[in-house]
């Protein structure tokens, strides 16, 4: 039994966070809570998410989870952001239960980004 607190997937996502950074002129949402800061940037086109980037200050699980979210949501409908739940990420990355609050900061940020995307879409129409 391993006593490594991070699984291979968390290590890989933390080591090479391909979506770390920001997108100039893109939609953005930021949440700071539980000692964690998460900022998400999204470029949309035709109701779909064309590109996602993140900035994060937090533990390795937070960074891995937000990278996994960005990698998994590019190309999906912007409306799906409003229904995002962090529970799948918690499970797939084996995030310790005591870090639930931190991972929920990502959920809050994604949903905030979804709200901004919806408002932008309404005003564009």
């Amino acid at each position, binding site marked *: 039994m391993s006593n490594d607190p991070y699984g291979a997937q968390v290590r890989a996502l933390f080591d090479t966070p391909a979506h*770390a950074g920001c997108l100039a002129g893109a939609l953005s949402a*930021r949440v700071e809570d539980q000692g964690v800061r998460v900022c998400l940037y999204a470029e949309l086109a035709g109701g779909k998410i064309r590109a996602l980037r993140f900035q994060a*200050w937090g533990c390795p699980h937070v*960074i891995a989870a937000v990278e996994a979210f960005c990698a998994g949501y590019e190309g999906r409908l912007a409306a799906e952001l409003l229904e995002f739940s962090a529970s799948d990420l918690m499970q797939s990355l084996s995030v310790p239960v005591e870090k639930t609050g931190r991972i929920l900061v990502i959920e809050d940020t994604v949903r905030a980004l979804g709200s901004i995307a919806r408002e932008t879409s309404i005003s564009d129409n």
Partner: protein
Amino acid sequence: MTEQANLIYLDYAASTPVDPWVAEAMTALMTADGNYANPSSTHIAGRRSVEFIRHATGQLAALLNTDPGCLIWTSGATESDNLAILGAAHYRQVRGQHLITMRTEHKAVTDPFNTLQKQGFEVTWLDPETDGLLDIAKLAAALRDDTQLVSIMHINNETGVTQDIEQLGRLCHERGCLFHVDAAQSVGKLPIDLATLPVDLMSMTAHKVYGPKGIGALYIADRPGVHVDPLLFGGGQQRNLRPGTLPAQQIVGFGAAAAIAQSRMIDDRKHLGAMRDRLWSGIRDIPGISTNGAMECAFAGILNVSIEDVEGESLMLALEPLCVATGSACNSKSQEPSYVLRALGRSDELAQSAIRFSFGRPTRSQDIDVAIELYRNAISKLRGMAPERAA
């Protein structure tokens, strides 16, 4: 096992490798062709084991310039601390129940004091100054007529800050109370002369000084009123103070490690100082970096630094394959910021970002250069992906 070659180990304050000469001396007492007999046995093989133990006790006593009869073998510094603090407090409780220690002590000291508090003893917890040192005026003000025991560590295991135990001990003796020193980090590294130091009880361990894990010692001064009640019972060994079969091979290991430490203490300190200075020179220009505990009053084998705007747990992972510590090793699974650094006035965030680098005999300049590169890269990476703080 294959990862071992790539590791950069800078965690010698947590544990050191066993010196090859020490391992050789120990092995001779473990195998069928060696002196493995129980030293409590009265036959010739048992008596040989006793001779090995006597020799090793003499080696440790020589390092500390004390009488071998003042040393009690234990399983390590944690047991020594427990025996000293619980044992002395109970032995002297008819004289008074007031005790004094610092908030920056190791858990092996704070937990026994917490236990004594629950048993009805009164404990005064002293805060350090921001440099980590104890202001002797604070101790003087805390001492009372019913104070029985003061416990202050020599070298702090997290910061390396070294207390003036001679000055503190003298004050304790002037006021008629016992003085215990947790010297787990200092025995074999700093000169300690127990023939002249005003210390009544001193805890030590082998594995911080290139000896084996699982063996420590408690010095009990041969002076009136200096005594401890035992924690363990059965067998009568070591004057009933710490019964149990003596682990001859462990004791021989500690003795050999003590002898080696005595012979190379000056060279060791020069080397550690050079390693620490090289590391600090390589990272001190990073914006937001600061040392925990003043370097001018810290042991050269430890460098503890905090850094602004970097999350501590991510920093630890980003530093791999560098083996360093956050809080003390005994507490490193906790996500809580170090209570020692909080006592120095560090914020939760700065305490959580703290990294303790500690150096040893095997540390090479190349290791330090790799550590500098890894640390700078990790800071750069984590700061690069962090959003600005909210205004």
